[in-house]
């Protein structure tokens, strides 16, 4: 209990929309209302209530706890309430109801470079920004060299920041914030900016803040890969309500799976309209990891796709095949059952099962959907084709050897094999 640094109970935040009028003609309404006030009683009560009831709950009954030294990820779609939650935690705005207990100094990186003045030099902005974030002058002076070194802008220290490239600007801003040394650090989307090299540096800094220095980090990002890698626990917000809270890899895969009804197992009972024709009918498809049905696969684990089907009539060579698609709809590959002795042999009626095994260290992180089909190739005929039959999520939380190595940022690419490399000193 003593280790709980953030304790959030039934937190809610309501915004009243419609009440906030357009900014330029605001005061006139106040005067108008004041003039009309005596006559308001003539209007029916209901009418007035209707006008003020346009409200919107950005957060509703959110509760969770964070322990010291934990890195908590907060994920959710746009408008899920992530930013509102962070704003309340960092005291920028206050909640409508509920309470938060926080132990220790909180610093928020809601947007790096807040309070930077374009006319001031890098040096001057370090002091200004530090003061805005709550550092004392002595503290800034003490860390000044570290900040400059981290930001890699030594040469431009006395140039107005308006002449900086956007990369330099962000580096300087993050450097100031990263040296804040709060007990609790709130980070929102800072990693969306800067080049890959600097992103890695930022992630590294956050990891060390959380790990070695034992500080607590709240991290909001759309980069699920970064969240699974950095955070142990994840809070998933959906429409202002907490949807799930728990282990990072688990919640992230649920989050990625959300929005499509496809799961790791699909079954068609007798009589239900299963895909197929008079020759063959699909009965069951599932995704297995280590023999168990699972929708979540670690990047280095092999995946099995079990296709279960019923042959109704004798006389055709039936070749089951699977098509695997990445999140963006790109076809990753097609696999056929060419090698099992059924290549030229017609199947007699009965239940069959074909297992496709895809090795570990093959897929990239993300959600993979599987289309299942069965075809005859001479002459060509497709007996059934079931899109989105099953799906699974590839996550990378393993500390095992993967092709990611020490890189922590976004690693693009559809596949991510572990390639053998060898380096020799040539001369």
């Amino acid at each position, binding site marked *: 209990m003593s280790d709980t640094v953030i304790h959030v109970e039934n937190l809610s935040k309501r915004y009243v929309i419609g009440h906030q009028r357009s900014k330029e003609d605001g005061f006139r309404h106040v005067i108008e209302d004041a003039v009309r006030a005596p006559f308001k009683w003539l209007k029916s009560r209901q009418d007035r209530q209707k006008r003020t009831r346009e409200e919107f709950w950005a957060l509703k009954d959110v509760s969770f706890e964070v322990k010291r030294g934990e890195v908590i990820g907060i994920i959710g779609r746009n408008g899920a309430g992530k930013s509102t939650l962070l704003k309340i935690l960092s005291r920028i705005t206050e909640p409508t109801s509920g309470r938060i207990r926080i132990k*220790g100094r909180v610093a928020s990186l809601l947007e790096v470079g807040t309070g930077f003045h374009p006319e001031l030099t890098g040096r001057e902005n370090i002091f200004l920004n530090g003061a805005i974030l709550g550092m004392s002058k002595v503290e800034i002076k003490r860390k000044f060299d570290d900040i400059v070194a981290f930001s890699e802008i030594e040469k431009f220290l006395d140039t107005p920041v308006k002449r900086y490239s956007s990369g330099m600007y962000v580096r300087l801003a993050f450097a100031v914030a990263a040296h804040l040394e709060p007990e609790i650090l709130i980070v929102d989307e800072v990693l969306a900016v800067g080049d890959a090299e600097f992103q890695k540096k930022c992630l590294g800094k956050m990891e060390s803040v959380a790990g070695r220095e034992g500080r607590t980090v709240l991290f909001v990002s759309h980069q699920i890969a970064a969240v699974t890698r950095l955070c142990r626990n994840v809070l998933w917000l959906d429409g202002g309500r907490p949807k799930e809270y728990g282990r990072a890899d688990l919640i992230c895969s649920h989050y990625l799976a959300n929005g499509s009804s496809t799961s790791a197992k699909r079954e068609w009972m007798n009589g239900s309209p299963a895909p197929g024709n008079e020759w063959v009918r699909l009965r069951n498809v599932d995704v297995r990891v280590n023999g168990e049905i699972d929708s979540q696969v670690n990047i280095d684990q092999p995946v099995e796709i079990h296709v279960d089907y019923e042959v109704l009539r004798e006389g055709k060579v039936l070749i089951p095949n699977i098509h695997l698609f990445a999140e963006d709809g790109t076809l990753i590959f097609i696999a056929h059952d060419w090698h099992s002795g059924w290549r030229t042999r017609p199947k007699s009626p009965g239940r069959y099962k074909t297992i496709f095994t895809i090795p570990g260290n093959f897929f990239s992180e993300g959600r993979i959907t599987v289309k299942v089909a069965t075809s005859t190739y001479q002459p060509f005929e497709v007996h059934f084709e079931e899109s989105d039959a099953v799906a699974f999520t590839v996550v990378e939380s393993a500390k095992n050897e993967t092709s990611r190595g020490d890189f922590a940022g976004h690693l693009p690419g559809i596949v991510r094999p572990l390639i053998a490399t060898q380096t020799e000193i040539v001369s």
Partner: protein
Amino acid sequence: MEELIIEAGRTEKNYWRDLWRYRELFYFLAWRDLLVRYKQTVVGVAWSVIRPLLTMLVLTVVFGKLGKMPSGGVPYPILVLCGMLPWQFFSTALSESGNSLVTNSNMISKVYFPRMVVPAGSVITSFVDFLITVIILAGMMVWYRFVPSVHVVALPLFVLMAFAASFGAGLWIAALMVEYRDFRFVVPFIVQFGLYVSPVGYLSSRVSDLYGDPCRLLYSLNPMVGVIDGFRWSVLGGEQQLYLPGFCISLVGVVLLLVTGIWYFRKTERTFADVI
């Protein structure tokens, strides 16, 4: 370790302590505004000398020469400068701090700090202008070989009063501006109008001379009347009498302005980030 509790309407408790913790931010904000102010100008800092000098010249010509107002035996430029000193402080502080929250809106909506730091920083910036004008006044006094009275020891008290009036009014305008941008148009009007309804270019005794004492009491409802009279009394001394009933009314006005300003600001600042 200190525990912080965030609840609806609960930010009050640590407010003044936080304000103290962020005291360096006052300094940094004022420092930033001063540094930035004359960037990319040709004349630079000279502007802060040119502006009061020209205003003084115009007011002396209009009120002293054309209007032939009585000066009570004091060189008219010094009389005018004495009135301008608190008035310019008040008017620049009012317009700067009034706009301060809106111009710093990115900070307000992104970082927590006691919001009062921002308008207070603007008042401090205006105070630097005030000090420059004090130097001009001193120069003028040397030029005219004018020796200030012993009352001058009381001057810091009136400076404090000017501070309170500026800060109080600035808080009101700043907080109102967040929600009602109308005040962007109201403030220049107050400043323009105020120059004439405050005894900047003339002596406030002129009001009672023309319309009698009750009128002067009414006139003193303008808090700046008391502040300016106080300045003249302490710097010019001699024949300048402090009209006590009027001064007291102004003093009450200043205190009221400050107290209600803080009250209104505190009341509304919790929703600044949502509204701005």
